[in-house]
Every structure is written in C-alpha cells, then in structure tokens.
C-alpha cells in the first residue's frame, strides 16, 4: 500500500465532479479525480438524447461527457478511471483500489460527486418471480448505447416522467416495442406535450393511476400484472420491464464517512458553499438531490470550486476551525426536499425545492424560531413535482447562526 498527498480529491467524474475539478485545476491546485467506471462522464455517457450543455449549442450526452472530461484534463486535473474509492482512512484520506493496487490518498480537500441511481425492482417491493429481463434505465441505456446488447422485443416502462420517456426512446432505438408507460400517479409527472407525443406519435399508451402488482415468468419475463386505481386489472405481455426514475443518492461513501445526511434528500447535508458536516469535505451534484439536471450538477461543481479554493488558501488552522456548521434548513410538506439544506449567513447559492403535488402561484415563507426571514412569491409559476422550484438566497444574512432550524413553508397565495 502506498500513500500520496494531493490538494483536492474529487470522487466521481460526472458533470459535477468534472466541473469542480476543471476550475480547481485551472487555479493551480493538484487535483485528482477518481472514477470507478472505465470512462469519465457519469450518467451522460449513456444518454444518447440531446439537450446537454448550453442552449442553443446543445449536445448529446456522450458528447457532453467527453467535453467535460477533456476540459478537466486540459485544465490539468488528473482523471483516473477504473479506480474505486473504497473507504475513508482519515478525515480527508481515502483508500482506493485500481489495477495498480491499493493506495491511500490524503487530500487537503475532498469533493464527493458520487451521483445517484434508480431504485431497482426489489427496493420497490414489486412482487412476483425473478425472471431475466428486469432492469433500470441506467442498465438499459448502457446495454443499448454502450454495448449494443439485445434487450428483448416488448418492454413495459414503469414510470412516466422524463427519464421514463428517455428509456422508451432507448427501447425503440434498440428495435423493440414499448408496450406502455405505467405510473401510479393520477397524472404523468412530465410536460403534457411529452405524454401527448408518446400517445399520438409513438402510439404508446401512458397508463396513469396504474400499479405494477406482479412480475410473471420463469427464466424470462413473460408479462407484468397491473391494477388500475378503479380496481381493474390486466396482464401486459412483455419480455422486458424497465424501472425508471425514483432516484436515490449514491451515498455509500458519505455514510461510511459518517457525514451528516439530510433526511429529505438522503444525501449529505450541505450549506450554501456545499460544505458537508466534515471540515474540508464538500459534496456536489446528484448525491445531494437525486436528481436534477446535468447542468445543475455542473453548476454546483463550479460553485463548490470557489469554496474549496477558499478552504485551501485559508490561514493554516490545525483545529479545522473556520468551518461554519450552519443551521438546518427544513422544507415543510408538501415540499419534499430542499438543497442546500443547511444555511449560514454568507450563503449565496439559490435553493432547489421539490413539491409533492402541483402548487399554483405558490408563496414561500422562510422563518427561524418563529421569526420571519423572507417571503417569496411566484406569481407566474405553477410548481410541479417533476421540476425544481428555485428559492433565492437573498435572505440568508438574516439567519442567526446560533438559532434554531430555518423552516421553508408554503403559504396560500394572497
């Protein structure tokens, strides 16, 4: 086992990690990015659809992944693929494994950019047999776009959000038929035009209010049993079922390091500078909020770079002081989560919120210990579950760093 020291260790070479690495390397820091996959880029590597990067010059996922990876390398960051960060060996020290063996890497700052994944069938407790032909969008896209594997002939897609439609497109690209998109929700959580396009252009049924109750088949999947909320049941014959969406942060390293997790996101809790509970450890991208767009992740990577730089150039303080704890920031129902989820008076990063159900012209109130800090109106907005609602950070200077948690609540429009 060998030991080395770098300035910044970034775990995960997706959009967030690569964006942070690029900016930090530009300023002359010794930056190393650990990527356990064989190629850098994260999830965009296998998203064949467009829409990545900056409008109007948008790119496909793989092109965007390559652009980010090239950018980081050109800036001077060392992107090491095929290397897994296994565990912590100290507050900012990680053990890794790769083809060259085990290594202990100590860093002055660590940036966790470990991303998110979809919850598979078992985690969703869908009963039935365990046949072949059951996968997630992540596996499906890699099988089709990275490996050119055969995926069956008839696929049912569980979910009806954007990623579900991306999965349906992948199924069609592989030459197979999409039997239906199925969602428990009463309305598809997506822009109506998307559902309409599926129904009219692709002639794919989008079944709302419908639950997958059982997987059937021995050896290979033969069908899925579904139940509509009105009690009707049916069996959809298929040899493939794709469980889409329902993303969760890949928080293994954060948990192994005993970082404080946010109960709303299940990712590491961070303040507006994307600082976790441990001095010198930052977190960016989908591990914070499973999931927002690649652009959001990259923006957070860039934002964190500033805070990492400040931490690297701080007056040497052996006691790790100067690491503001912040106070918890809690989104109250029907809001599901907020990121960042801790707040210090100096924070400037806007907050991303998700709501459980649509809110027309919402008004958000921010309070601490009963004291109003801020009221924000969204007079032209209908907040929907499948898109983030952004709350400004113009109010953070009013936060009492010694006070209680800050609450964000939805008020009736006035």
């Amino acid at each position, binding site marked *: 086992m060998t030991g080395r020291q770098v300035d910044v260790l970034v775990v995960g070479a997706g959009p967030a990690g690569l964006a942070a690495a690029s900016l930090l390397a530009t300023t002359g820091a010794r930056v190393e990015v650990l990527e356990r996959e064989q190629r850098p880029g994260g999830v965009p590597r296998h998203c064949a659809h467009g829409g990545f990067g900056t409008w109007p010059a948008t790119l496909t996922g793989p092109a965007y992944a390559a652009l980010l990876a090239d950018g980081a390398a050109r800036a001077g960051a060392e992107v090491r693929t095929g290397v897994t960060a296994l565990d912590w060996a100290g507050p900012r020290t990680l053990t890794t494994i790769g083809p*060259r*063996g*085990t290594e202990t890497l100590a860093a002055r700052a660590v940036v966790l950019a470990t991303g998110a994944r979809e919850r598979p069938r078992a*985690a969703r*407790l869908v009963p039935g047999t365990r046949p072949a032909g059951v996968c*997630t969008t992540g*596996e499906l896209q890699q099988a089709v776009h990275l490996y050119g594997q055969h995926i069956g002939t008839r696929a049912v897609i569980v979910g009806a959000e954007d990623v579900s439609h991306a999965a349906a497109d992948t199924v069609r690209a592989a030459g197979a038929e999409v039997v239906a998109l199925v969602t428990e929700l009463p309305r598809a959580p997506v822009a109506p035009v998307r559902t309409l396009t599926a129904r009219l252009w692709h002639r794919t049924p989008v079944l709302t209010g419908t639950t997958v109750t059982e997987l059937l088949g*021995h050896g290979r999947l033969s069908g899925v049993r579904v139940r509509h909320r009105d009690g009707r049941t049916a069996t959809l014959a298929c040899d493939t079922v794709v469980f889409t969406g329902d993303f969760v942060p890949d928080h293994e390293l954060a948990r192994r390091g005993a970082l404080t997790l946010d109960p709303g996101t299940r990712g590491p809790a961070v303040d507006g500078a994307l600082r976790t509970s441990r001095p010198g450890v930052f977190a960016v991208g989908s591990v914070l909020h499973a999931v927002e767009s690649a652009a959001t992740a990259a923006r957070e990577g860039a934002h964190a770079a500033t805070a990492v730089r400040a931490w690297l150039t701080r007056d040497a303080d052996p006691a790790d002081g100067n690491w503001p704890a912040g106070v918890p920031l809690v989104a109250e129902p029907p809001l599901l989560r907020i990121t960042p989820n801790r707040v210090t008076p100096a924070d400037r990063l806007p907050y991303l919120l998700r709501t459980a159900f649509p809110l027309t012209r919402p008004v958000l109130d921010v309070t601490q210990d009963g004291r109003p800090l801020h009221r924000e109106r969204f007079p032209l907005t209908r907040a929907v579950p499948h898109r983030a609602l952004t709350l400004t950070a113009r109010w953070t200077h009013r936060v009492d760093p010694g006070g209680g948690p800050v609450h964000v609540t939805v008020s009736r429009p006035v």
Partner: protein
Amino acid sequence: MTVTASGTLPVEPYDVAVVGAGVVGCAVARGLAHHPGLRVALVEAQDDVGQGTSKANTAILHTGFDAVPGSLEARLVREGARELAAYAAESGIPVERVGALLVAWDEEQLAALPRLAEKAARNECHDTRLLGPADLYAREPHLGPGALGALHVPGESIICPWTTTLAYAVQAVRGGVDLHLNAPVTHAGHADGVHRLDTPRGPLHARRLVNAAGLHADTLDRALGHHDFTVTPRRGQLVVHDRFARALVRHILLPVPTALGKGVLVAPTVYGNVLLGPTAEDLDDKRATGSTAEGLSRLRAQGRRILPALLEEEVTAVYAGLRAATEHDDYRIAAHPDQGYVTAGGIRSTGLTASLAIAGHAIGLLAGTGLDLGPRRPLAPVRMPNLGEAFPRPHQQPERVAADPEYGILVCHCERVSRGEIRDALAGPVPPRSLDGLRRRTRARAGRCQGFYCGAAVRALFEEAQR
C-alpha cells in the same frame, strides 16, 4: 472432466445415477467420486447446480438444537454440521459462527425457552444459555422494545449456500463424475437390473439410482412404484436488506416456536446483508417461486417489531424458495435393495447443514443394495473463491492485485466484484450458464443497484465468454 448441457446423453450405462444437482445430490455425487471404480452421472433438470431449494434458503448452518431428538434428521444435522464446518474451513466456503438468539416476546415464549434448552441438550447441543432482557439488549442493542429474554445458541452459524453446492459439484466433476444439465427426468423405469431415465436429451441408463430430486422426489419415487411420501412445497419468502443494515444485528435472531406457529427470523448473511423471513406457505404448485404482496407486507410488519431500524434500510433483493416438506416429521431416506435404488426425500430446511452426512448415509445404503464401491481414495481438496465479507476478497489482497491487476478492476461496484473474479468464474470447471449463475459464483449484480451501474458490463463479460 465432463459437464454437458446439451446433446444426447451417453449410451453406456452408469454404475450410479444421482438425480438432482441440489446441495444433497451434489454431496452424494462428491461422496461417490471418492470411489474411482464407479462411473457416476449427476443428472439435473435445470442449467446449473443448486438451482432449486438450495439457492433460496436462509443460509444457516444449524446445530440441530431444535430437531426432534432421536430422529434421523437430528442425527444427520448434528453430524453434517460438524462435517460441513470442517469442509468449509478447508475449502474456503465462508462461514461465520455468529450464534443465534431465540427471542421471547411474550410470557408463553419465555416459558418455552427452558424446554428448548433441554431439547437442545438432548440433541447434544450443551452450550445454550438463557439470557435476561439486560443481557439480550446488551448483545442486540437495536432489538425492538418488549423482548423478555432469549436462549443463546452459540453454535448456530451463517454460511454461503451457493459456494457449498458448487464446491461439492466441482469436486465431483474433478473426481470423474459426469454432470448432465438441462436433463429433466420425464419418466423412470427399472428392468433387468438397469434403471432407464428418460430425458429430453435422450435416455440414460444406470445400475443404481439415487433420488435427490428435492421437490420432485415424490414423483420419481412413484415412477419406481413407491408411495412413501408426498412433497408439499412450502414457500418461504425472504427479504434481503442493504449492507448498511449489517451493523444493526450481531446474531441470528430466531423466533420461539409456539402453538401459534413459527415466526420469522432476522439473520445476517456472509455477504454482509441482513435477511428477514421466511414465510411458510403450503402450496400445490412446485414452480410457485414468486413473492407476494401479502407475504412481503407480513414479513415487514414482523421485521419492524424485531429490528425496527431494519425497515429504514433499502431492500436489495426479494426471493422465495420452496422447501420440500412432506407429511412426515422426518427425512424420508430409504433403500430399496431389490431395485438398487435409494431415496433421499423430504429434506426440508436442514438439507444444507446435513448435506455431507446425508451423502454418507445414502452411500452407505447404496452399498447395502449390493453395490461394490471399490477402493476409496481421498479427493484433491478444492479451494473456492471467497464470497464472504469476513474473509479477504481478492481486491483486498495487495499481493494478488500486484500479481494480477484484473483483481484490482472492480466491475460490480456495490458488491465490489473484480473483473478477475468474473473471469475465473466463467472459466471454472462448472461454469455459469446464465447471469444468475454468475451472480451466485461471484456476487456480481447482487448488490443494491441490481445492475444499474454494472449490469450491462457484467453481461458483456458473460456473453464474451459464451462465444
């Protein structure tokens, strides 16, 4: 070494045919491989060894403390446990002697504990100990509130069932046994001192027959004119929880059997997960290996009482196995010397533990039918790849990674399976013929992401090896 999965079966009669390559059939075949004078066939309906009950159980190496004293099962479990523990140590099969706690949740269960301790003593399990609530919660701080006490059975262990069955099969095949997969026996008959087994791959002839057909042992038994037992498949649904749950539990937490039936257990696995289950549902359908919504919700309700924090962790897998229960309280192991036939039926939930002793017993009965076993030789020891968390995996051994960098390239990230381990499994003497078979040999795709990250990459490696 002969493993076949397609084509016509050999014409020349075997000395012994073992039907069923589950843990019992593989153990019998391995036992027979000690006798180089015998030509032995191991005939399996599915495309891999251990594909039935042997792959879907609670993965516990029992002491036999709660067996019916004096029964055949009690003796074979006791002997088998000792033999398997020694064999596992020698072969690299992961075993952890975590011990069991029979937790009493009400006065009736508490009152039953001393009787269970006496029963354990009659089963030669003398080191059990009654624990009060303070001791119990000191040992299991995450246990749900309201437990009154427990019986501690230190010898109960957890084991890897997949590696065990595979180790037997590998030794059998290396020792000269012919393993024929994809050969379900559709009809069996005995004439002129020779058994004829019809399969879709043609007939197979053998002078002696061992029935280790598990769930289908009664069908084969009837084909040979016996009506000793009927197998009623008893379904056990099990829920595997994420490895983050492993820190919540130290022992196997067993229910106290009462008049109201058996409850469910919570047990760590050697892979570092935590099991919750099983249900016990008597069914007619021998293919009903599906989980059900009712089964899962009942398990989770019981799990919430036993270990509330367990329910906070993600579920990694759900599976259901069928135990070969019969109308009898004991194994149905019998010899029919006139037919040169031995049945090993009714091996319920203790088959894994007792497998080596069942094999010894069955081979003894086979010799009693007049079979000359010939000289006995020791088998070359087998060293299995370690799938257990308590022992070093290849990527954790710097010298192995230095010698072969493939052990440093992790493909399955959740379970930390290297490309080297997948390569080895694909090149093994009894190679996998499906991704599930590869999973049972390596743990690849068995983790919390269930293939989100690695599924396509693992499949690519598998398909490359099939070419």
